[in-house]
C-alpha cells in the first residue's frame, strides 16, 4: 500500500485567538487522517500563542508547529507564506486545509503558487476516493452546480467554507506535541499596516438566524419589527439591496450577489421577491422561510416554508408564538 503524507491544517490567528473555522477543519482533518492512517498536524503563527496551540491539540491535532514571534503578531502575507512554504517542503503533507476566510483566501493561493500545487477554493465537502486521493466538492456558478475536484500534485490544497464542517468536541485530556519552530524573520515585505480599527459591524455571515426585509417594508422604522423577531431568535437583521441603496440600513446587512453570502440555520425573508441576485447570497441556508403577499414570488421556489400574506400581519403573530414558546407555555 502507498504511504501517505500527513494532513495539515492552517490555524488562523485572529487577534490572538484561533478562528473557529480552523477547529472545524481539525474535525474534518481528523477523519481524513484516521482513514489514511497518518497524523493530523496544525501550523500556527503569531505572538504569545502557546495557549492557543494547546487548544489545537484538544480539538484533534497530533502535532502543532508553532511559530511564535513578534513579527508574526499581525497577518503579513509574505511572512506567513515564507515560513509555511518552508515547513510544508520539510514535512511533506499530502493534504493541506485552510479556512476560506479573507485571511485564508489571501494566503493559500500564494502558498499554492510557491509550491506549484493545486488549490481548490471555497469547498463545502471533502472526502477520499479508493486510492486515498482528496475529492474536493465546491459550488460553481452561483451555486447552480457542484463540482468535484481532484489534484494531481502534493500537497492537495483546499480552502474550506466556514460553518460547513462540524465543530469537533474539545477534549482537554488529549495529548499531542507542540513543536516550537524557528521563525524566519523577514524585516521588509513591501507592506506595512499603518492603522488598524475594529469593524463594529454585524457579522451577518456568522449569524445562525437572519430575518431579512425587502421592499415589502413600508418605512425604515419598520425594520424594528424584524429586529424584534431576530433578537428573540438570537439572530440579526438582513436586507435586500434596494433598502441599502435607499439608505434605510447599512451595507453590512445586505444579502446577495453584491452583498454578503450567508448560510444561517434559519433565513426568514420578509417582503423579498427572490431575485437571482438575492438568492445568490442566501440559497444555501439550512431552512428558508418566506413571507410575501404575492403567491407567484420566486422566493417561494426556494423556500421550505412559504407564507402567502401581509408581513405586517404575519410577523407580529409569529413574534407572539415565539414568545409563547420561550415562556415554555403549552396552550
Amino acid at each position, binding site marked *: 500500500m502507498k504511504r501517505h503524507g500527513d494532513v495539515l491544517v492552517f490555524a488562523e490567528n*485572529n*487577534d490572538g485567538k484561533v478562528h473557529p473555522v480552523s477547529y472545524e477543519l481539525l474535525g474534518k482533518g481528523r477523519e481524513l487522517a484516521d482513514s489514511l492512517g497518518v497524523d493530523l498536524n496544525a501550523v500556527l503563527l503569531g505572538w504569545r500563542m502557546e495557549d492557543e496551540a494547546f487548544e489545537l491539540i484538544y480539538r484533534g491535532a497530533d502535532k502543532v508547529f508553532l511559530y511564535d514571534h513578534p513579527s508574526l503578531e499581525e497577518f503579513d502575507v509574505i511572512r506567513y*507564506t515564507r515560513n509555511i512554504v518552508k515547513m510544508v517542503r520539510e514535512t511533506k503533507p499530502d493534504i493541506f486545509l485552510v479556512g476560506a476566510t*479573507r*485571511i485564508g*483566501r*489571501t*494566503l493559500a*493561493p*500564494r502558498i*499554492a*503558487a510557491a509550491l*506549484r*500545487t*493545486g*488549490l481548490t*477554493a*471555497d469547498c463545502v465537502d471533502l472526502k477520499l476516493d479508493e486510492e486515498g486521493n482528496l*475529492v474536493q466538492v465546491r*459550488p*460553481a*456558478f*452561483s451555486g447552480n*452546480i*457542484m463540482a*468535484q*475536484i*481532484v*489534484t494531481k500534485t502534493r500537497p492537495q490544497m483546499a480552502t474550506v467554507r466556514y460553518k460547513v464542517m462540524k465543530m469537533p468536541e474539545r477534549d482537554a485530556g488529549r495529548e499531542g506535541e507542540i513543536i516550537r519552530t524557528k521563525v524566519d524573520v523577514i524585516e521588509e515585505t513591501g*507592506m506595512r*499596516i*499603518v*492603522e*488598524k480599527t*475594529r*469593524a463594529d459591524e454585524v457579522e451577518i455571515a456568522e449569524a445562525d*438566524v437572519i430575518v431579512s426585509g425587502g421592499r415589502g417594508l413600508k418605512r425604515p422604522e419598520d425594520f424594528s419589527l424584524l429586529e424584534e423577531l431576530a433578537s428573540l*431568535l*438570537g439572530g440579526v437583521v438582513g436586507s435586500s439591496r434596494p433598502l441599502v441603496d435607499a439608505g434605510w440600513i447599512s*451595507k453590512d446587512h445586505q444579502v446577495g450577489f*453584491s452583498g454578503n453570502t450567508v448560510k444561517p440555520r434559519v433565513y426568514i425573508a420578509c417582503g423579498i421577491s427572490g431575485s437571482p441576485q438575492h438568492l445568490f447570497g442566501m440559497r444555501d441556508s439550512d*431552512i*428558508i*422561510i418566506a413571507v410575501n403577499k404575492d*403567491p407567484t414570488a420566486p422566493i*417561494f*421556489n426556494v*423556500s*421550505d*416554508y412559504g*407564507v*402567502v*400574506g401581509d408581513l405586517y400581519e*404575519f410577523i407580529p403573530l*409569529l413574534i*407572539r*408564538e*415565539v414568545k409563547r*414558546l*420561550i415562556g415554555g407555555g403549552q396552550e
Partner: protein
Amino acid sequence: MINQLNIIVLLKQVPDIEKVKFDFKTGRIDRSSAEAVINPFDLNALEAAVEIKEKVGARITAISMGPKTAEASLRDAIARGADNAILLTDKRFAGADTLATSYTLACAIRKVGSYDLVICGEKTIDGDTAQVGPEVAEFLGVPHVAYVEEIREVKRDRILVKSKMGRNYYIIELKFPGLITVTKDVNTPRLPSLKDKIRSRKAEITVWNADSFSDLADERYFGAAGSPTTVAKVYVPKAERRKGKIFRGDLERAAKEIATVLREAHVIR
C-alpha cells in the same frame, strides 16, 4: 506631478450571469445562451485604475487570457479608459486552472516589462476562486493586498489602501511594484460614452500566443497540461429540493407551525 505610473489590469471575459442558462442534466453552462461581458468585479479593477490615472497620471494596460472572442471585452476596456490591451490566446493556454492561468498572466506581465501596480478583481463570477490575483503576485514575487475596499492615496512609489480582514479594518501601505485585488465597494464603474465606444472600435488589440513569451516561460506550465487540478465530476446539487410547504389564509395557524419549526431548529432560546 509625479512620473506616469504603469498600471496593469487583469480582466476576464465571462458569460452574463443574469442571463446565462444551465443544462441541469449535465450541469454544463451553455455559453452561447448569454452575451459575454467583462467580469463585473474586473470593472471595479479597471475603474480603480482609471481613477488613479485621472488623479496622478498613469498608463493602463489591460490583459486578458481567453478565446479570440475575448477581444470584445478588451475593446470595452479601452472604451472605459485603458490605454492598451493585450489578449493572450492560444490552444496551449486552454483548460487552465488558477495555477496555470496565473502563471501565464505573470509571464505576460513580465513580458510587458516595467509596471508599478497590478489590479485584479476580487473574483470572477464563473471561476469564483479569488485565487488568480494572489497567485500572480507570488509568481511575480511582489507583495499584494486582497479585498481592497478603498484606495486612500497614491504616491510615486507606494499606495495606501483599506482592506477588511477578520474583524478589523486595516490601512496598509503597499510599495510598488505590488498587486491589489479590489471588491465591489472600491468604486462605482462608469459607463463608457458613445464617443469612447466608437473610438475603441478602431483601437488595436495586441494578441500574444505561447510563443510570444517563450523566452520567459516554460510551456509545460501552460493550459490543461500545467494544471494540477481537474474537475472529476459536475452535478446539480439535490439540496435545492426544498420542502416548499405553503400557508395561505390562516396566518394564525401558519405562525404556530413556523414557531414549532423554529423550536425544532433550536433557534428559540
